[in-house]
């Protein structure tokens, strides 16, 4: 109704605003399009225009590896870590979202911690986690020594790693987004459906499985997408909290100062493509779930 009454004419300055918006979108996507085009640079071509023919030369170069960096291995590591972060983010955010619907002791504190984690400068989180695991290393070595576990002591390197410190660092970044999305979902959730299920004799688990979850499923998929893409591209929080092996974005960051040929653009195109595929798949799944729900 409010919309129907809404002033029929365009607001003042419409043309100017439209121009700003169009320019902004070009500003957003233009540079990305440039490196996508330049990654097909011919073998003779350099980092800038003009294109010296079109080829897949730099993608082959990339597959051979850039200097000492094994791109394939880094890609696989980031993919696996992203999937683990995605699953954990979905699982934990949904559970916590459900908890916040009931009376949760310390819920306020948990909410403020969540917001704090979201806006905390990443270098601080990263430093803290790095420090924590280094202190843990010291403690572990002391314990091994005390217990006389000589062989363990000799082979022990560090507790810093992809699935320990880096995983934790990623979760401090993805979980707040997950929980805030769940808040938005449950704010609009009609509890009448649950009550109806309960009245018809469904158990708590049945109510969740057959009523609540199908209703929130599209949003949970969205939470998963946040989890994966944020982890896939994360640098700042991982930087000080990673052990001996790097994730793909960290390798990429290192390569920006050493690689001076279009292979780095090829790598950029591939990582961006992965992000776009994940976003596309998410949107398709959400659409499918929504359609299934309404039919």
């Amino acid at each position, binding site marked *: 109704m409010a919309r129907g009454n809404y002033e029929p004419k365009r607001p003042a300055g419409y043309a100017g605003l439209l121009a700003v918006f169009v320019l902004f979108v070009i500003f957003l996507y233009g540079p990305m399009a440039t490196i996508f085009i330049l990654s097909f640079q011919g073998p003779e071509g350099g980092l800038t225009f003009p294109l010296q023919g079109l080829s897949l030369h730099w993608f082959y170069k990339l597959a051979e590896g850039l200097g000492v960096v094994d791109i394939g291995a880094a890609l696989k590591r980031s993919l696996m870590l992203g999937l683990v972060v995605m699953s954990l983010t979905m699982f934990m955010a949904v559970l916590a979202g459900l*908890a916040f619907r009931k009376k949760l002791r310390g819920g306020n504190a948990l909410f403020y911690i969540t917001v704090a984690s979201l806006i905390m400068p990443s270098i*601080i989180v990263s430093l803290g986690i790095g420090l924590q695991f280094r202190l843990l290393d010291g403690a572990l070595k002391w314990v091994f020594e005390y217990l006389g576990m000589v062989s363990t002591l000799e082979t022990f390197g560090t507790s810093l790693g992809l699935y320990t410190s880096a995983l934790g660092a990623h979760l401090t970044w993805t979980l707040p987004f997950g929980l805030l999305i769940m808040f938005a979902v449950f704010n609009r959730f009609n509890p009448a459906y649950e009550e109806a299920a309960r009245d018809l004799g469904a158990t708590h688990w049945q109510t969740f499985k057959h009523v609540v979850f199908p209703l929130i499923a599209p949003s949970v998929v969205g939470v998963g997408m946040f989890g994966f893409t944020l982890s896939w591209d994360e640098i700042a929080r991982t930087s000080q909290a990673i052990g001996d092996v790097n994730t793909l974005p960290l390798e990429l960051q290192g390569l920006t100062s050493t690689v001076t040929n279009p292979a780095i653009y090829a790598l950029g195109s591939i990582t961006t493509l992965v992000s776009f595929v994940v976003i596309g798949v998410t949107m398709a799944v959400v659409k499918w779930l929504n359609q299934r729900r309404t039919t």
Partner: protein
Amino acid sequence: MSSQQNTASTAAPWRISAGWQATPYSLVFLLFFLIPLGLIVMVSFWEFNEYEMIPSFTWHSYLSIFEGCTQLNDYGDMCVTLKTYASTLRISVIVWLITLVLGFTVAYFLAFCVRTTSMQTMLFVLCTVPFWTSNVIRMISWIPLLGRNGLVNQTLVGAGLVDKPIEWLLFSEFSVVLAFVHLYTMFMIVPIFNSMMRIDRNLIEAATDNGASAWQTLWNVIIPLSRTGIIIGSIFVITIVMGDFVTIGVMGGQQIASVGKIIQVQTSFLQFPLAAANAVILLLVVLMIIWGLTRLVDIRKEL
């Protein structure tokens, strides 16, 4: 099975208390957020040498960070720490102003100029998709445009506007600010758009009916009602830029100092107590800024 048992079993199984449901989530933040923060504060008071940290309680790290900061040096300059903070703050303020104006304008366009909801959603998603792609890629994508032989310089030289390529386009403060705006305007658009969508459209109509000009409506109705979004966006942008070291590193050609970069370098030299003390100071500065921003809201509400 009697019906009574059945009732009992519907109530009991799978009923998990809120506390347990929130446990995995809470544990992550205890282990990877609260404890690390506590350790930073603790270690900032420790001693260190080339190989290891030594538990103790000393202000050495803090004192060495502010060494010589009580007065200007012989050349009339501030000490390194204050200078770094000043330059980081300056970049933050510039980026904040640009993203605020740009983000507000884009959000305004989306909220008030686009008529159908489906179009609105589509354009909103268009603005947010780059957020889910790699920041480093988005940074290096400026190289073919801004480099010495980049598209901008080629065009300018070709058109005869400049004699030789402009050097300050890339690996300069300009490119750092540009990259920040490119990466983080999204953090302004989303909360401001969200606030604007909650504004009752009748209020705008009422303002117009009472003879308010478009500017008056904007200034007296829309901006005050978008306040929450503006503050949230500002907090995001300022805290990100204040602690940044990746963007300043890559886009500044590793030549521009920032607080985050100092912490990163000290960590790589294993000077953990120094890095920790710097992190504590950065945290205090950021908290003060956030406190100031939230005060700004309250004061305006009271006036």
